[in-house]
């Protein structure tokens, strides 16, 4: 019983760490990629090497990758304690809701009613998945 509770607690702690670090990473990566532009178009114009050098020289990209690394190891930690069908979707879906706020605040994306409605559906889905 206690072992199960600790397992659950560790699973949810991992989910919290994944959500915070991956959301920060997503915002940073998105900003970095938007600065470079459509990778397909840039590659056709300037070549693959140019695209890679632009990505690797982007501060936002490097910071984003650091956040993603934290998120990845939190995921490994979480998966060692709980089912993939809970940790995976719960972390990713909660990240979606946090991301909607972060994208509006930091990336100034147009998060309209349709996107907020989707956030609520996703949040409800996450609660159901915890049962």
């Amino acid at each position, binding site marked *: 019983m206690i072992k199960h509770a600790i*397992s659950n607690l560790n699973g949810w702690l991992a989910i919290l760490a994944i959500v915070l670090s991956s959301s920060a990473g*997503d*915002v940073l*990566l*998105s900003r970095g*990629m*938007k600065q*470079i*532009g*459509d*990778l*397909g178009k840039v590659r056709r114009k300037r070549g693959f090497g140019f695209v890679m050098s632009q*990505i690797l020289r982007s501060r936002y990209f490097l910071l984003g990758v650091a956040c*993603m690394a934290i998120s*990845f*190891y939190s*995921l*490994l*930690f979480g*998966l*060692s*304690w709980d*089912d*993939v*069908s*809970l940790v*995976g*979707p719960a972390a*990713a*879906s909660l*990240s*979606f809701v946090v*991301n*909607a706020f*972060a*994208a*509006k605040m930091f*990336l*100034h*994306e*147009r*998060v*309209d009613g*349709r*996107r907020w*409605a*989707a*956030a*609520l*559906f*996703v949040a*409800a*889905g*996450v*609660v*159901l*998945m*915890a*049962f």
Partner: protein
Amino acid sequence: MNSRKYLVLAGVSVFAPVGDSLLSYGMKQVGNISLKNIPDLLLAITNPWVALGIILLLGFFASYMTALSWADLTYVLPASSLGYVLLALIARFALHEHISLMRWLGIAMVSSGVGFVTSGPEVTRRPRRPDNDTVATEHS
């Protein structure tokens, strides 16, 4: 949206859940890792299933970065949500995990919720700044 962009989104959708499932399978072999043995997490990548999972997640990362270069973050994340359904199917049929009716319902709600988003435009159109704005800034 052209076929190349749909292919990129499909890559985001498929690589992530399959990679996660391989990681899960590998981590079950590695066993529980307590907070006292955090360095064991670094050794976990020597497990072949974890390593294969990482390769697929690299594929996901490449697709994801490409998608983020031409679409909003709040579009890319939900657009790749079909992966949740795939993840549930893998968990049920390949990993033989039990998926309750409530979890199935949750997965369905997540997928339908994100369906709202994908029916809209993929990127926030920003008005071009007139040239005289730049000039005004330079002279101020």
